[in-house]
């Protein structure tokens, strides 16, 4: 479907379902198309031309952006679906898990916590830890961008607050980066890396934790039956 689609209902649907996963789009389309056709069928006998009836039927549906905000609260987005789908493909995981289990197992926060703890445990000097942490952060940036990294921005945008999304993202990235400054100062004062490790880990993990909490909140509203029957 593209913006040149001739059918006005398709254009409305495209706007109302933008950003949702394919299965949600298909369900909404299959459900709302007959609704729209019924509305047109009821309007035509009242003496309206077909295109006039279609226009009124669309007006009765209302603002597509408002509908989209509602759909995104009750359906998985493409980003969230990708995150869950990626998890389901991992070998050795039981396929049928509840929404909470999916989220916890897919948690970059928990996984990163373990990895950084390992690096911290084997790192005696600050510089080695610092480099290793940035390598880990770099490695995680790929799945984070693909799965949850954009969520602090994407969620407010989805709820019609784009500036808030950008502000949240800038805030957390600034927080993570600024964590380096006190660490450097502390190191200059001779504080051991044993103290710096947990401080830096805390800031690094904070952003990931927020991402996960946002997804958890969403998953908690979608029942297990809905999640497990989706074609991941």
């Amino acid at each position, binding site marked *: 479907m593209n913006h040149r689609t001739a059918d006005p209902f398709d254009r409305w649907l495209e706007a109302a379902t933008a950003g949702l996963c394919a299965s949600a789009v298909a369900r909404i389309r299959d459900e709302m198309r007959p609704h729209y056709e019924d509305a047109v069928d009821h309007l035509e006998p009242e003496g309206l031309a077909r295109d006039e009836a279609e226009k009124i039927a669309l007006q009765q549906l209302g603002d597509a952006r408002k509908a989209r905000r509602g*759909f995104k609260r009750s359906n998985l987005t493409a980003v969230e679906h990708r995150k869950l789908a990626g998890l389901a493909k991992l070998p050795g995981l039981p396929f049928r898990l509840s929404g909470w289990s999916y989220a916890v197992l897919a948690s970059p926060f928990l996984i990163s916590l373990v990895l950084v703890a390992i690096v911290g445990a084997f790192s005696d000097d600050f510089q080695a830890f610092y480099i290793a942490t940035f390598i880990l952060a770099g490695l995680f940036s790929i799945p984070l961008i693909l799965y949850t990294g954009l969520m602090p921005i994407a969620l407010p945008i989805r709820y019609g607050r784009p500036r808030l999304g950008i502000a949240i993202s800038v805030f957390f990235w600034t927080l993570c980066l600024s964590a380096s400054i006190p660490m450097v100062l502390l190191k200059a004062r001779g504080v051991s890396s044993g103290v710096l490790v947990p401080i830096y880990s805390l800031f690094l993990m904070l952003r990931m934790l927020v991402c996960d909490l946002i997804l958890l909140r969403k998953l908690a509203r979608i029942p297990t039956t809905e999640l497990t029957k989706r074609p991941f």
Partner: protein
Amino acid sequence: MNLKGTLPTLILQVLLSGPAHGYRIAQDIKARSKGVLEFKEGTLYPALHELENQGLIRSEERTINGRVRREYRLTDEGHKVLVAERKEFRRMLRAVSAVLGESS
């Protein structure tokens, strides 16, 4: 009249009469309120999905008049919630009437 916040309860009430698809639910609400309660039909489906996520209604696809429809029906939990919501709504109505100085 704005339906904000009351649409889910009205949906549950319509489904008390039996299973229905989205278009019929929308028409039923408008007809029962004699056109007073107006809402944009695009907001009906997110509300239906949310109610289904909460387990208050369930849905299945059926072919009706040659068109495949998703038909919704009330669950036992939905029935309980509806009873509670109606009770709460009547209590609020009595309170508002008392403030406005009208007998209920």
